[in-house]
């Protein structure tokens, strides 16, 4: 019984992490029609950033670190978007390729800067003691992580549905040219959304550190998961990213625990099923 | 049990299509006889091209039936309808701009031939195809440009190539979506006479805005507005009808 509970919680916390990772990816794809292959690297940058700073300054608050990493990664993303991506507006394939190139650059840079060994990230002190609920013991940090994901989801929902910025973003997702025609500054919006997506990924990377550790190849492990979540949940849909993240979190966790060698196949079965019967994903719109 | 009606080239039965709350096709029913020259008119947004898209299979209706020579093609993919003799031109130019005119028409011919699956003989070795393509270009008066890339010819000439491609397959039903759009007066009369000379074996259904020119070519007219058929029948009857004037003049 304890096994199922623990794996269940692990699934939830992985799902939460995946949401932090893929919500940005989904947003960027939805608005900019760009498959941002750098996204895994942005996440990894956050994890390394968290690992290095939290180990160096043990008194640092993980939340502050996450926020800081989020801004730092957002800034890097913004520079990349302004300097490189905007020059390739007419070349969507080129855009994807430079994001791929950028991911290689970032991942190798991490290797050069911080070496090839895996760097574990300490769980924050005040969250190290386990929580007892109904006689079961849960690692507190993982519970908190789920809370973070829900918080981020609520925050993003508010942003998209209740603010002017969100309205502009949604307009841009629905009909880019029309949005431009009514005076919405679409290219500034692109930069904002790219920074937002990158930033969430970076912050998510820090928060994922205690569970995943920072290691070279983290980006290559995370990116396909983000892709599968977005393919499953539907492009441009936050709800889809949310639901998809938890579905994948469960499948991956239980799959890895029960059939470690075949976890990848189990992961891609729901993706195949969804693509076969609903190519636009569970919540995506046809013709996205 | 309705008996099959092979004397109808195209039958549309109670067709409906909506995008969310917007109804673009509302209970449209049409019956077009073999060899007929039908003109479909209506103001912008009346749903004419949407109707064409459903007939050609580029769009699926929400309900209703489309029958081509008695065969229910409602769920058929566009390429299958082409094999039943349906051909169409588009409002925007959809030619292969980097290729020569001859290559464009050759592709048009290839679409219905089994040799389109052939992977080991170069296309250029098919002399018969090339000959037929050049002949088709000749009938539209463009043989002298056969070896020019499409990107280098004038707009009016491109429209004629579109027509050539559609005619090359000797279709049984031809859908022409605004064939005269954007043409100068001389080009217009050239294309008009081309359409007039299409053999009777081909049923022609045309969408046009330029009523003066198009009406000469039409035998029957269907007036659409807001996705519905308003008036439908012989040309002169439709023109004289009150409702036609209402739609166009708001009187």
């Amino acid at each position, binding site marked *: 019984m304890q096994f199922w509970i623990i794996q269940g919680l692990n699934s939830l916390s992985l799902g939460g992490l995946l949401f932090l990772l893929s919500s940005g990816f989904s947003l960027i*794809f939805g608005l900019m*029609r*760009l*498959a941002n292959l750098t996204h895994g690297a942005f996440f990894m940058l956050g994890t390394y950033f968290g690992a290095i700073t939290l180990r160096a300054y043990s008194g640092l608050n993980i939340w502050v670190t996450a926020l800081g990493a989020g801004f730092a990664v957002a800034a890097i993303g913004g520079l990349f978007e302004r300097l*490189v991506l905007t*020059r*390739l507006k007419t070349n*969507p394939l*080129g855009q*994807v*390729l*430079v994001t*791929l*190139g*950028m991911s*290689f*650059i970032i*991942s*190798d840079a991490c290797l*050069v800067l911080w070496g090839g060994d895996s760097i574990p990230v300490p769980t924050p002190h005040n969250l190290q003691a386990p929580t007892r609920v109904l006689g079961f013991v849960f690692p507190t940090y993982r519970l908190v992580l789920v809370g973070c994901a829900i918080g981020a989801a609520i925050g993003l929902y508010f942003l998209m549905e209740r603010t002017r910025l969100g309205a502009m973003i949604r307009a841009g997702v629905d009909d880019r040219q029309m949005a431009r025609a009514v005076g919405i500054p679409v290219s500034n919006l692109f930069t904002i959304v790219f920074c937002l997506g990158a930033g969430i990924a970076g912050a998510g990377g820090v928060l994922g550190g205690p569970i995943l550790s920072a290691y070279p190849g983290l980006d*290559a492990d995370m*990116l*396909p998961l983000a*892709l*599968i979540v*977005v*393919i499953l949940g539907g492009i441009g849909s936050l709800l889809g990213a949310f639901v998809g993240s938890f579905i994948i979190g469960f499948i991956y966790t239980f799959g890895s625990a029960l059939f470690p060698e*075949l*976890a*990848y*196949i189990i992961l*891609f079965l729901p*993706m*195949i099923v969804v*693509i*076969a019967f609903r*190519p636009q994903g569970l919540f995506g719109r046809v013709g996205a | 049990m309705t008996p099959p009606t092979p004397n109808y080239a195209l039958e549309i039965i109670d067709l409906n299509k909506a995008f969310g709350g917007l109804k673009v096709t509302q209970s449209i029913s049409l019956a077009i006889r073999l060899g007929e020259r039908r003109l479909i008119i209506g103001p912008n947004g009346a749903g004419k091209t949407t109707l064409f898209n459903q007939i050609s299979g*580029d769009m699926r209706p929400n309900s209703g039936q489309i029958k081509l020579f008695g065969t229910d093609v409602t769920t058929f*993919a*566009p*390429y299958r309808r*082409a094999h039943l003799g349906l*051909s169409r031109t*588009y409002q925007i130019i*959809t030619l*292969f701009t980097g290729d020569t005119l001859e290559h464009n028409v050759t*592709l*048009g011919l*290839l*679409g*219905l031939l089994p*040799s*389109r699956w*052939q*992977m*080991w*003989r*170069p*296309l250029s070795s098919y002399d018969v195809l090339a000959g037929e393509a050049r002949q088709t270009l000749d009938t539209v008066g463009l043989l002298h440009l056969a070896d020019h890339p499409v990107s280098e010819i004038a707009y009016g000439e491109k429209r004629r190539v579109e027509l050539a*491609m559609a005619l090359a397959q000797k279709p049984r039903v031809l859908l022409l979506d605004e064939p005269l759009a954007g043409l100068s007066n001389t080009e217009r009369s050239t294309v008009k006479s081309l359409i007039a000379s299409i053999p009777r074996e081909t049923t022609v259904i045309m969408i046009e805005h330029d009523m003066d020119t198009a009406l000469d070519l039409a035998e029957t007219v269907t007036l659409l507005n807001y996705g519905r058929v308003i008036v439908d029948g012989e040309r002169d009857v439709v023109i004289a009808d009150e409702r036609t004037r209402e739609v166009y003049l708001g009187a």
Partner: protein
Amino acid sequence: MKWVATALLAALLLLLPFFAGDFYINLASQILIAAIFALSLNLLVGFGGMTSLGHASYLGIAAYISALLTSRYGFGHGPAAIISIAGTIAMAAFFGTIALRATGLGFLMITLALSQVLWGLAYRMSDVTNGDNGIAGLTRPTPFGISLDSAAAFYWFSLIVASLALLMMAIFVSSSFGSSLKGVRDQPRRMAALGFNPWMIRWITFVYAGFWGGISGLLYVYYNKYIHPTSLSTTSSAEALLSVIAGGSSTLGGPVVGATLVLLLKNYASAYIERWNMLLGLVFLFIVLVMPTGIVPGFSKLMARLRRQPR
């Protein structure tokens, strides 16, 4: 003029082992293998308009099947090769069915996801694939009893296969099917209205590209006598895509030129720089920003301009 150049090139290629040392002959073999791989990808990218980031799957699966059958199950190279290619074709058929439910970026993402899943399997299923250790100690085949262990012998073998590949692809591309493929790339709606079946055309091309990817995979494992999951990785797919884009996807020669450049760069750069991935990324950025149509078209445009200039 063109004939003289072609004849000279052919002579150079044929006679290379007589005037170059083993190091260069081996380099040339690697270039030939990379060229076949890039050419197979370009059937999809350049001629089919389908950009895939998962093409290394076909190189890798053929290599692994051959490696396993010969080293662990005692198969001869001939039967092993046939089974490898059959397996590769089956996988391409399956992956193609999934990936072609989408086009454009959706297609790209699905091919990437599928190939990463395959890579993950190769890494994790260590009792089958030996995981991160790879499978070593493999042998080269002996067609008609001729040993391919010497650099020169293997080089000529690769040259024959590469020439055959180039020839068959040239025929494919200029055939009626090839023309219909290019048509579907340019105007899919128009092609469907003309009676062509766009999905089937794309799918057949996908499988054919997978077939040649598998062939390059066999050559790859024969050359290296070793196979490791990195050959299935996104980096491997990305190198091929870079070759196609750098050389120019609109011609048959482009990917060959691109593959040559990427391989030479990889070889020489690794002597000075440890981080090949970073360099690869920077080259990607450079090519896309500065020469988006690739070298071969850029070069032929330059030649055309020079010829038109008055003397």
